[in-house]
């Protein structure tokens, strides 16, 4: 009996266990969710998922940084190869890129585009399923949409005819199949991009209460995202649609206008004049009353022009930078610029071309020094006998010894848009829109200096342009009666850089345009604009020599035997573009 009971109990226990097992086992125990990846049903569920997707796309986008700089600078005339450059980079510099060259492969651009397309499609689905509000949708859709347009603009600049794909596709390698995805010419692409980007319902930066504008790991995210108005201005400028371009640029230039805070209002994106007493500015300057002493140059990471690239993302930084993505050694992707530029702790793959050096040396500073300090003092330095491009590595090298502070501290930035570029682009549009005087003023010493009348105390009717938007500037700065107009601190690009004004010779529109493009070289060198500038002007003037001559001068000064042949080659527009190929295994 006793035995029976025990057996019975055991049977009971077994039965209970069996029942228990049958309820739980298959569903919960064996079906483990991966912890480091998301399933498709775990994304795009709410606005925070959408935000994560956007951040992810920007992370992917940052992998284009090195290529962006190399394509736009090494192909143009300001950057040259070094003893360490590989043959593919030399080919890029000498315009002999063959189909097996990694720079001929646009796949990484399309990978980001694929991400964008996936984001956009899912935002549509989320909106339809009411997973976020119309406003939230508009802001995010416009951001990713504009980013995609930016990438397409780059593709068009470098590859000419490219397929314009706006839907996620099954197999990315199909892009290279011209029969599946038709390649459209550059002009058509620009029209498509203008139509799409203009059609976006939201053009401002994310509002400050957006869940995307936060502080993450010490970085304020507001300037991570593309500025839509800037890209719209650029697209219209490529389309030679000058008034529209000026309107969009001017919208950005007036970002501070409604601010109640004086320094926001007067300094944001307005190219403020130099603070000669304190030197707490972004200008090329010297210690006061020691302007004749070359050792008194303001040359540190927290003051003056150099600090544009070296300072933390503080108030002053925010008055200049419109779009900039940080590389942090604690997070992927890795900063590619250390290896590219530094000869200490890096591979030193590129350097300033002799032609670029000559451009800076040909300027005169307003203290009579026969060079532009933005050149050899800031943009590049001589380190160990090498000309080293410094803009990207100020955060990596010790400010005094110029040795790496810590080889593993590879913080830096990808410089994408700043006020100086905005002003130069706006001036380019204005100049072509019969507003050469404004263009010349913004390029040189500012609106006030151009429109003032010497000796007049009452500023009521002077120091302003008296034009309708987008050419309205009020730079009045007077005390009797008192005026402190929005633009009164504008000091002009060359004013801020402490160089003599650029002379206008011959036809003023052409001459000022030349001055603007040359100024972009002096001010924005190595920030990834040069090739686009040369192509845009050469197309606008229908004059390939504008581009070809400059590349010739670079290669000639570098001692390349190919200089003459490259010039001949570049006189034909088709040869400006890279071959559009990629191999499946890459």
């Amino acid at each position, binding site marked *: 009996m006793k035995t029976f009971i025990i057996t019975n109990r055991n049977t009971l226990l077994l039965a209970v266990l069996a029942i228990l097992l049958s309820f739980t086992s298959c569903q919960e125990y064996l079906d483990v969710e991966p912890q480091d990846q998301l399933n498709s049903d775990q994304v795009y569920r709410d606005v925070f998922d959408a935000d994560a997707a956007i951040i992810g796309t920007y992370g992917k986008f940052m992998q284009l940084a090195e290529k962006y700089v190399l394509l736009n600078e090494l192909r143009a005339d300001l950057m040259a190869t070094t003893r360490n450059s590989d043959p593919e980079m030399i080919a890029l510099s000498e315009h002999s890129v063959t189909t097996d060259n990694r720079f001929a492969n646009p796949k990484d651009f399309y990978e980001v585009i694929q991400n964008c397309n996936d984001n956009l499609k899912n935002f549509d689905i989320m909106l339809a399923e009411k997973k976020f509000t119309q406003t939230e949708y508009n802001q995010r859709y416009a951001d990713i949409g504009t980013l995609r347009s930016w990438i397409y603009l780059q593709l068009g600049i470098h590859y000419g005819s490219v397929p314009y794909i706006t839907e996620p596709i099954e197999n990315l390698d199909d892009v290279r199949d011209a029969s599946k995805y038709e390649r459209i010419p550059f002009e058509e692409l620009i029209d498509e991009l203008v139509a799409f980007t203009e059609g976006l319902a939201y053009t401002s930066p994310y509002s400050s209460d957006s869940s995307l504008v936060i502080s993450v790991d010490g970085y304020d995210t507001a300037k991570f995202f593309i500025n839509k108005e800037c890209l719209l201005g650029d697209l219209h400028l490529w389309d030679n649609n000058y008034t529209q371009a000026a309107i969009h640029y001017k919208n950005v230039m007036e970002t501070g206008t409604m601010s109640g805070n004086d320094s926001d209002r007067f300094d944001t994106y307005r190219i403020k004049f130099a603070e000669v007493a304190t030197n707490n500015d972004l200008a090329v300057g010297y210690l006061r009353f020691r302007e*004749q*002493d070359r*050792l008194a140059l303001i040359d540190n990471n927290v003051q003056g022009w150099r600090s544009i690239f070296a300072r933390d993302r503080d108030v002053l930084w925010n008055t200049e930078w419109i779009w900039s993505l940080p590389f942090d050694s604690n997070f992927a992707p890795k900063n590619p610029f250390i290896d590219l530029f530094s000869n200490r702790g890096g591979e030193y793959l590129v350097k300033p071309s002799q032609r670029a050096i000559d451009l800076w040396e040909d300027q005169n500073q307003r203290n009579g020094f026969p060079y532009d300090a933005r050149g050899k003092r800031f943009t590049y330095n001589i380190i160990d006998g090498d000309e080293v491009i410094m803009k990207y590595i100020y955060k990596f090298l010790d400010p005094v010894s110029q040795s790496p502070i810590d080889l593993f501290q590879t913080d830096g930035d990808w410089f994408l848009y700043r006020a100086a570029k905005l002003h130069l682009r706006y001036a380019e549009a204005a100049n072509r829109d019969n507003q050469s005087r404004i263009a010349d003023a913004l390029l040189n010493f500012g609106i006030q200096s151009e429109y003032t009348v010497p000796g007049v105390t009452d500023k009521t009717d002077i120091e302003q342009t008296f034009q309708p938007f987008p050419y309205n500037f009020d730079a009045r700065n007077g005390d009797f009666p008192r005026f402190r107009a929005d633009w009164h601190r504008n000091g002009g690009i060359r004013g801020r850089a402490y160089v003599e004004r650029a002379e206008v010779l011959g036809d003023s529109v052409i001459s000022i345009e030349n001055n603007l493009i040359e100024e972009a070289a002096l001010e924005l060198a190595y920030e990834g604009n040069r090739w686009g500038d040369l192509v845009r002007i050469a197309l606008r003037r229908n004059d390939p020599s504008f581009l070809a001559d400059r590349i010739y001068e670079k290669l000639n000064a570098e001692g390349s035997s190919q200089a003459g042949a490259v010039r001949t080659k570049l006189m034909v527009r088709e040869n400006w573009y890279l071959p559009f190929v990629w191999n499946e295994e890459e």
Partner: protein
Amino acid sequence: MISIKLNKNYLGLGLLLLGLVSCSEPWEDHAGVNDPNLTLNLSEAISQNAQTSEFGKLLAETGYDRVLAGSKTYTVFAPSNEAVAAVSADALSTAQARKQFVANHIALTAFSSVTQQDTVVIQMLSDKYLDFIDGSRVADARITDADNYTSNGLFHIIDKDLAPRKNIWEFIKERAATSDMSAYLLELNEFNLYTRDSVAKANAIPGMQADSLSNSYFTNVYNLNNEKNKYTFFLLDNESFSEETDRLRPYMNWPSEDTTTVYTNYFTTRDLAFHKAIARENLPDTLVSRFGVKVPLTEATIAEEIQLSNGVVYVMSKLEVPLETRLLTTTIQGENPFGFSQSDKRANTFYREKADPQGNVFFDIMVQNHRVPRFTIYYTASNLYTTTYKVYWRAINDIQTNTFQQRVSFGGFISPTDGSLQQPFAELPYTNVEPNTYEEVYIGEFFIDRQGRSALLVALQAANSAADGVNTLTLDYLKLVPVIK
């Protein structure tokens, strides 16, 4: 059933294969040493080689046979038996000499005759350096049988011995008894031309640069005892040497006759050593010394040519350097001051980098708005001659519109109490600095009648006024041009 049979066949085949392979021991064949050359080391190979057995005996005698039996890799340039027989008795007279002789034929690591470079400079165990040219010659010997490899390096058989040569300094020492100039150079072991020489000699750590610090000629001109570089040296014969020094002597007036002689000799001989060995056929008609003196050369006056281990010496029966080129102009750069009469004017002192109207860049100094009457910038000048100097300046007054005045003084000392200039022996008059003048301006002359140990103090003094714009100082450079008496 059929299948089993087949299996058995395969088994048999496999066994057969195994049997065949195992006997030949392929791994042993692969790794074993079968090359008879590699069974011998250098020492054995050289002494067993019929052509070099005599050199082999020398190796054994000097103990280098044990070195060459070691595990390091060496290259030996082994002279053939005929070549060893032809060696001068001198080179093998003592045990020391024999050792040095053998060491000069051996180099560490392997140097094959097959090489990309046309000339390889090889350091021999004797610490001398020999040129290995085109893989077929070493120094002046020809290689008759190259690349005999052994287990620890290789040897080349050569048709002529490589008896070690003296270097230039050893040659000079040898000539000291008969050559005045050589004797003088040896004196510089003890005599210090400049204060820094005595410091260098006192601090010389044996082994580390000690060589180049041990003689004032080495510190100030070239280290002729250095085997790693090559030099060309002109040794004047006694007559020519006294001719040259006599000409220079009036410009080297020291308080004592002996000192005058030492410095006259130094300023004569310092222009006679040149970097790199220049072969007779490549001698140009003028060489420029490292001090900037142009030395005219005529091949006809070469009395003797001696090839040495670190270059070549030409003994000259005549080598005349005219005073016009011997006496150098001294240039003082404005932007390299030695000091100021007071140190609190840094904010008024501008180190400038500007361009003249032609676009030529210059660096200069300007001190402006300092409010100190007779504010002074100090410079020093050394290696001047006892003669009259004409003084020129290039002083650029480009940021003011008015003319101001400044003056230059020579000699004297800086007052330890207020930094002012005291007792200059020559004071040039206050001279106008006109606006926007970029040319050199003659400002006067001064005379030096005696040399002194310390460098000459040169002072640039502002006007005696506290007014801004009037007491400005500016200087690109001062030029002191010696006048031939």
